[in-house]
């Protein structure tokens, strides 16, 4: 019981920067929702139930164009497919003692940021750590969207711009420390960033959406690394602490 509480509090603590970053991003989402004709309640409901920036932005343009429901379903499937890879990774990281009910709940909060922080936690992932992060991050995302619809000009541009970098800084916080001990991970990160840059700017491939780019590069690079540098037994635990 004490352990659960400890993990929950730790989750809230690590969830606060996620929530603040979300506040900035969802604020922009709220402004876009208003342009698409959603009410503040509809926009907040969309954010609360979806928790996905790229997916929601894409949804707004589909709603504006009155697309078919099937098209909406397919677009969400493609854009959000990266969560599938993340959930596969988390299925191995989550505490094996956690029952299926916990898995249903943890799944709801698999966002880029919560995933990133979850994989960096030491040892097995306690569901209560996820709940702590979710209870700090989800209100940030939902309230930010709501406020964005109601009032687009409440935060000055400078503050919004500065807050937008928070989410990326958190990714850096997760991937840089293991590089110090593990040269393979360092090489993989440099390769991934270089390939991502190439795919973002080179002709033809730059037409590929960012969600698809994440999936393609993850499968190619993590796949190649798995074949070239298979991990030794126990290596996962060693790096978990980082």
């Amino acid at each position, binding site marked *: 019981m004490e352990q659960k509480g400890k993990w929950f509090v730790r989750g809230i603590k690590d969830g606060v920067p996620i929530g603040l970053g979300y506040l900035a991003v969802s604020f922009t989402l709220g402004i876009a929702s208003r342009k698409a004709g959603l009410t503040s309640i509809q926009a907040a409901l969309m954010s609360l139930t979806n928790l996905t920036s790229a997916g929601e932005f894409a949804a707004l343009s589909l709603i504006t164009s009155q697309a078919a429901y099937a098209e909406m379903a397919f677009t969400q499937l493609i854009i959000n497919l990266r969560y599938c890879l993340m959930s596969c990774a988390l299925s191995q990281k989550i505490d094996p003692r956690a029952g299926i009910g916990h898995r249903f709940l943890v799944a709801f909060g698999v966002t880029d940021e919560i995933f990133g922080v979850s994989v960096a936690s030491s040892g097995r992932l306690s569901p209560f750590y996820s709940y702590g992060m979710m209870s700090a991050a989800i209100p940030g995302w939902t309230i930010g969207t709501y406020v964005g619809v109601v009032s687009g000009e409440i935060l000055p541009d400078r503050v919004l711009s500065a807050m937008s970098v928070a989410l990326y800084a958190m990714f850096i916080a997760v*991937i840089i420390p293991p590089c110090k001990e593990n040269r393979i991970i360092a090489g993989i990160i440099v390769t991934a960033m270089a390939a991502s840059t190439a795919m973002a700017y080179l002709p033809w491939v730059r037409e590929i959406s960012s969600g698809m780019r994440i999936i393609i590069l993850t499968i190619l690079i993590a796949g190649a690394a798995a074949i070239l540098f298979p991990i030794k037994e126990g290596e996962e635990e060693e790096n978990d602490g980082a």
Partner: protein
Amino acid sequence: MEHNIYIYILVMALVTYGIRMLPLTLIRKQIRHKTIRSFLFYVPYVTLAVMTFPAILTATDSVWSAALGLLAAIFLAYRGKSLFQIACGACAVVWISEVIIFM
């Protein structure tokens, strides 16, 4: 026929939750296959690296403030600072540099 916004939201939510939920609930055993284990071990690093770069460069109002924020985050992460400190440090660097850039 006019489409209903609430049905749109419901469709989105169901698809997105399904993607997140199915792997977590269907894969409940520890995977023994060495290559698959290695693949899943490397997935987060690749995914997070691809999501960070080059997207971070266009996240703020200036590519220079973003680059400085990125460098600050890398420096703080390398020094072993906490998640919160790294996030706040990067935000502060972006804010200060934009105050100077857009002066």
